[in-house]
């Protein structure tokens, strides 16, 4: 039987975030119709991109302008669309937005949900995710008429597959949220900083960065690499950088393609946040630092010396 999968597309400055394409790739299979739900742009502006990854239906969800940033309204609009288009599986990114939107949807329709999945068996409704601070991989069976999965950014390589899509409009401008009002919106689609949970490359600093000023060395290098800057708990607790930059057990869990650890010793709690990274490169002056025995490449060196040189080489192409 034909199954309909609904994919919640995330945009950044009106453009489709790259991380969506891997998610679409994971949802593609025989006997499956893909519906891309677009809330923050006109469907026409993203049609080509979505078609090139195999989307055959684009649903443009029209929200009232003053309601666009309200997470309760967004969830309601998605739930109505899920019902309208007979969606049996909902895919969304396990991103900052997804961590709010997906549980809101799942809770309202009492659907099972697993966040941060890096594998989905569409036929058997099995997913894989990490649990216990990244120490185990759990295979979880989802049961229910509609299931919701949050996809880990960078989990797989996106693969193109040309399709031709029809655009469907779905008016949701009449929704209201009682008890919940947005006073200020930081902007779900206006983030200018590359955010940690979705970055391809992360360059992170720890105790070895010594102070707040030295973190600018990392941000200069990050600019050249199109990377996000992260930090260990020590750097955050020392007040060098805000806690929002923290990678680890009680910080952001990240899975970039490359994680460059500068002056980070590599505690169990730090690994809990970055062990699912593709490649780990560690720079540390202490040859006994734990991270040097659990990485792909390491240099026993001072990151404060290496990083500016790295930036320079990248600048000169």
């Amino acid at each position, binding site marked *: 039987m034909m199954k309909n999968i609904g994919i919640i597309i995330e945009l950044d400055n009106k453009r489709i975030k790259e991380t969506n394409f891997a998610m679409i790739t994971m949802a593609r299979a025989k006997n499956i119709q893909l519906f891309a739900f677009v809330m923050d742009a006109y469907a026409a502006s993203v049609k080509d991109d979505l078609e090139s990854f195999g989307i055959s239906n684009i649903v443009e969800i029209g929200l009232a302008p003053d309601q666009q940033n309200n997470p309760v309204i967004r969830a309601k609009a998605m739930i109505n669309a899920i019902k309208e288009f007979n969606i049996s599986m909902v895919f969304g990114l396990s*991103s900052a937005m997804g961590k709010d939107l997906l549980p809101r949807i799942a809770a309202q329709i009492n659907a*099972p949900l697993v966040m941060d999945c890096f594998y989905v068996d569409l036929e058997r409704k099995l997913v894989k995710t990490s649990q216990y601070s990244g120490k185990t*991989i759990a295979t979880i069976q989802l049961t229910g008429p509609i299931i919701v999965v949050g996809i880990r950014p960078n989990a797989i390589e996106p693969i193109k597959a040309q399709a031709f899509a029809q655009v469907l409009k779905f008016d949701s401008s009449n929704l209201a949220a009682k008890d919940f009002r*947005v*006073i200020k919106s930081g*902007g779900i689609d206006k983030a200018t900083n590359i955010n940690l949970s979705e970055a391809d490359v992360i360059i992170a600093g720890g105790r070895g960065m010594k102070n707040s000023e030295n973190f600018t060395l990392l941000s200069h290098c990050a600019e050249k*690499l199109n990377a996000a800057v992260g930090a260990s708990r020590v750097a955050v607790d020392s007040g060098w950088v805000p806690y929002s930059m923290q990678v680890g057990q009680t910080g952001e869990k990240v899975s970039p393609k490359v994680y460059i650890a500068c002056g980070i010793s590599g505690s169990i709690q730090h690994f809990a946040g970055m062990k699912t990274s593709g490649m780990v*490169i560690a720079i540390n002056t202490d040859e006994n630092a734990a991270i040097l*025995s659990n990485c792909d490449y390491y240099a026993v060196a001072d990151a404060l010396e290496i990083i500016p040189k*790295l930036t320079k080489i990248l600048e000169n192409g």
Partner: protein
Amino acid sequence: MQIYICVKHVPDSAVHITILSKNRIDENISFLLNPYDEHAVTEAVKIKNNNPGSEIIAVCLGKNDAEKTIRSAMAMGADRGILIACDENHDSIITALALKVAIEQDGNPELIFTGKESIDAEGMQTMFRIGALFDFPVATNVVKLDIDADKAIVDCELSGGITDTYEMSLPCILGAGRGLNTPRYPTFPDVVKSKKKPIQKIAFTDLNIKDSASKMSIVEFVPLKQNREPKEIKGDANLVAKEIVRILKQEAKVI
């Protein structure tokens, strides 16, 4: 004001996890109060100080041993505890149902806190499920909270330090984030006092929670193997930097 905090008894992040059978881990390890829940308790104490006469109740669904986690919450300032004792682990759909019924039987919640996630299952959803069951508004990853008469004004962190500000009517559900406050760790007298505070024990089976048609069940755990074989990059700072660029280009293919 009655403030409920849903707390979870979770394995210490530093312990080794041993898989006993397909979907069971060895639970004979050190467990503690979920770190995000500490922020919830700390915030509740702050609200209680501003609203004299308030009461803080820590509620936990867990095995008998979870009493320890309720005691930790009480040492940090919760006035009493409710343990919904069960013999097996439950998914967040059943957990939310049990917490809702227990809270409803106990009193009239104005605020219900959870941590923004638990560090074991990392499900990130129980607060929304409790909210849906009560039909109360929900916000998660709350990093700032002001209570203004019958409203809660909250800052929620999205990512990269960007926050949204929401206004919710009370009662509401709040998922505490790390930026909310600095937890106040208990002193020895706090711990002694917490031992005298009451914990009501309810059997999960007495709550008559019906099995849900929607569920999440663990099929299998496997240890995450890290097969990294560290290779050293040698040479002076220039050579190291050059080699890193080569690796990023040719091997990782990110530039």
